[in-house]
């Protein structure tokens, strides 16, 4: 039925890209690292695996990732249900707002949580005055709770987007039929809805898990020195100790875990997904008419906003408030009193006060960020769509089964390792890109690519072949089938994929900091420059620029929502 040659053709571009910009650099750095070992390749492996330190790190990495993923699903699924099944005002805004955390660099998120929960900030000050305490009761940073909360904060949007999109096209008739046959709503959920949703839920869980598993900034900044994931340990071994053989072993270990998990996932996914009678949202979504649905919506939206936006609001608020120096120091300890409204930090941002060579006004940094994001969207969609298409055409073909798990690997790869890989590998023409600004969107595309594939494949798989066949029988050319059958069906998924590519590119900091050129700073890089210097003006400008980043992201996501392809011809 399906032509294997066509599958191979579809794979050409994505594979060429991955080989050139992922496997080749990664292979080069691993090869070079092991070559530096005095004792051969095997010994560092044995040493690492028998070391109690490495075992502890690996154990913690897996454990916190499982816990974080579970909690993220728990928080995200009710929201996904609401977004999928109900039509209400402000839905686009809610979707965009819940997506902002995903974009923010860790240092900014830490600043946001601290603006809320810091020893002298809103929550603690209120609690201290309410209960007459002398010490701030909540200490947020350097705790496991901080790690878990931050992971939920970052990744809930993945669940909301992937699951809600799929769910919104699920035919509610199936559930209704079960109800008519006497099943309670719990039973319907367990035996009808959840099994049908499994492809989307597992895809989301996999992405969330890999993100948590390779977590770096959150662990470092919010978790503090007592916690280390593999990624943190790789950074320490590479940068602080320059123990490249051990770092390489840890990288391989991390990749191995990602690969094993992805293999399990792909086996599972091909069994779970089936062609479904998809329905237009207009058909599947209800309005919030009953009091029960309204209550559900209020509670869910309230909870999501409280969790995902209060740190953002606290951060934005601080960028408009004087940071010092007027402070009162009562007998009970330290209390910061908000000093009133100021635009100083924004004024300072716009005013080129010190003629520094790498100074980029915020407008320039925003343009640079948007430019990189645009290239990333184009590249990631151009490469991800054929790959997803090939996967969806025939998930049982040996080629697809073999290739599928490898697509996720870039997500599970240490940024430090890959960044150094670029330096080692891309050193010769025509690939001498080491100093090229293009390296930034290429690195962003590597991260965005798996998201594009994961967002598109479930949608493409669920297209019933009969629809295409029917169109063909009725005389449609392959192009027409693409335009009038496939595109409307996957349009929304394309838009989800584009949003992911946009947000990944706008917010990426770790890899960007390693490879960006100083005269082309992205917004996160510019924020970091301010944050790493002492003085109220520097800190204030970092907060102000973070607030601008949130604004740009919000606008960007709302604009993408407007251009939703699906509305062109949703059936």
């Amino acid at each position, binding site marked *: 039925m399906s032509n294997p040659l066509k599958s191979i*053709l579809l794979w050409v*571009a*994505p594979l*060429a*890209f991955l080989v*050139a910009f992922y496997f080749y650099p990664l292979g080069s750095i691993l090869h070079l690292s092991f070559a530096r070992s005095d004792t051969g390749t095997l010994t560092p492996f044995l040493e690492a695996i028998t070391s109690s330190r490495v075992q502890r790190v690996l154990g913690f990495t897996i454990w916190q990732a499982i816990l974080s993923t579970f909690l993220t699903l728990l928080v995200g699924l009710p929201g996904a249900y609401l977004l999928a099944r109900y039509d209400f005002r402000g839905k686009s805004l809610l979707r965009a707002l819940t997506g902002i955390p995903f974009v923010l660099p860790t240092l900014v998120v830490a600043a946001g949580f*601290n*603006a809320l929960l*810091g*020893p*002298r*900030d809103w929550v603690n000050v209120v609690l201290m005055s309410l209960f007459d305490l002398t010490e701030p009761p909540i200490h947020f940073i*350097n705790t496991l709770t901080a790690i878990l909360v931050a992971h939920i904060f970052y990744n809930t949007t993945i669940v909301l987007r992937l699951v809600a999109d799929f769910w919104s096209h699920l035919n509610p008739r199936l559930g209704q039929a079960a109800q008519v046959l006497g099943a309670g709503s719990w039973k319907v959920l367990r035996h009808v809805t959840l099994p049908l949703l499994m492809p989307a839920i597992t895809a989301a869980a996999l992405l969330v898990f890999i993100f948590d598993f390779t977590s770096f900034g959150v662990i*470092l*900044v919010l978790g*503090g*020195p007592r916690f280390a994931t593999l990624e943190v340990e790789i950074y*320490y071994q590479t*940068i*602080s*100790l320059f123990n490249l053989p051990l770092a390489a072993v840890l990288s391989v270990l991390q990749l191995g875990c990602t690969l094993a998990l992805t293999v399990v996932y792909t086996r599972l996914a091909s069994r779970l997904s089936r062609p479904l009678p998809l329905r237009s949202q207009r058909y599947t979504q209800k309005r919030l008419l009953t009091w029960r649905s309204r209550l559900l919506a209020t509670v869910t939206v309230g909870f999501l906003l409280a969790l995902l936006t209060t740190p953002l609001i606290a951060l934005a608020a601080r960028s408009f408030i*004087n*940071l*010092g*120096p007027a402070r009162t120091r009562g007998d009970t300890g*330290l209390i910061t009193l908000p000093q009133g409204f100021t635009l100083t930090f924004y004024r300072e941002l716009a005013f080129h006060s*010190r*003629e*520094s*060579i*790498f100074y980029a006004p915020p407008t320039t940094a925003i343009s640079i960020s948007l430019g990189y994001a645009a290239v990333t969207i*184009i*590249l990631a969609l*151009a490469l991800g*769509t054929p790959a997803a298409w090939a996967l969806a055409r025939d998930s049982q073909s040996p080629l697809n089964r073999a290739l599928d798990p490898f697509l996720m690997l870039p997500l599970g790869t240490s940024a430090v390792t890959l*960044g150094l890989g670029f*330096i*080692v590998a891309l*050193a*010769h023409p*025509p*690939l*001498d890109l*080491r*100093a*090229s600004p*293009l390296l930034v969107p290429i690195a962003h595309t590597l991260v965005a690519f798996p998201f594009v594939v994961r967002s598109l494949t479930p949608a493409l798989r669920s297209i019933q072949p009969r629809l295409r066949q029917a169109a063909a029988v009725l005389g449609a050319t392959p192009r027409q089938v693409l335009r009038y059958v496939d595109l409307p069906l996957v349009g929304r998924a394309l838009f989800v994929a584009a949003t992911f590519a946009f947000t990944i590119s706008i917010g990426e900091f770790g890899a960007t900091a*390693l490879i960006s050129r*100083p*005269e082309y700073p992205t917004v996160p890089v510019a924020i*970091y*420059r301010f944050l*790493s*210097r*002492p*003085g*109220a*003006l520097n*800190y*204030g400008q970092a907060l102000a620029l973070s607030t601008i980043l949130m604004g740009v992201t919000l606008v960007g996501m709302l604009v993408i929502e407007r251009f939703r392809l699906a509305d062109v011809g949703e059936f």
Partner: protein
Amino acid sequence: MKPKISLLLILLALLLAACRPSTGLEPRVLTVMTHDSFAASEEVIQTFKTEYNVEVQFLEAGDTGTSLNKAILSKKNPLADVFYGVDNSFLSRALDEDIFEPYDSPLLADIPENFQLDPQNRALPVDYGDVCLNYEIAYFENNNLPPPISLEDLLMPDYKDLLVVENPAISSPGLAFLLTTIGHFGEDGYLDFWKGLVENNVLVVNDWETAYYTEFSQWGGTRPLVVSYGSSPPFEVIFAEEPIEEPPTAAVTGDDTCFRQIEFVGILKGTPNRDLAEKWVDFMLSTTFQEDIPLNMYVFPVNTHAKLNETFLKYLAIPEKPVTLDPAAIAANREAWIQAWTEMVLR
């Protein structure tokens, strides 16, 4: 259709990247690789460009350790002509990996001997800065408590719960403070001192940003003592929100309480632009560049003829006897020291 488009895009991208102008009458290009804290005034760099009709391209490559690793890993096919930013805690790594060519700059004559740590002049000193304890002045005034003047003071019950430090495994000032304690108490005594700090409830965070902006009482926190830089107090004046007269913080600069970090520049082995690279090194050591350093990079010039900005002179306290350790000893023991520290402080 789709694969064709993407192939085209990639080819286009590669083409664009490959088509860099290489010959002709354009000025020559000198590439300078640095860490991400590098900054300089536009006009200062311009004087160099004009004088030698040269285009200067800067490559920032992450923090000090990361950028050095990149320079080492690309030594067979160097990314740049000059590397600036290796400090004395990483100097041995750079010298052992043999990435620099020696250069006896005439300007070394203006630089005190004690900054010149490499006798072969492969790495030439450019600037220095001290990692020192900082304190919030108001806290100590309001509590009628004298600020500490020595490391031993930190063990007194009066200073319980007051100090926040950075993790030496991750943070550069954190490592510098650990090295201060090793330099002062010796390899046999530093762990006992840290044991005392733990009993006095020292707080450890991973990075300077968290220590300074979240935990330090001058900003978001409750701890009036923080490991930061000797230059931080003047910057609190220069970057104050509203103009202020006196810095709200001060540095502890008693003997043996600060660690001196010295940053070096070197000509990368195999550069095809050796003549320009030498000119650049001379330029970095000249007063033109040296006097521009403090306000851009928050560290101080090593050239004795360079004049400091007035605000600096007014608020800056430079320690007379900071701790220094032999870079080779740091390189040899870094892992063991950090490991022992971790066992003592974090477990």
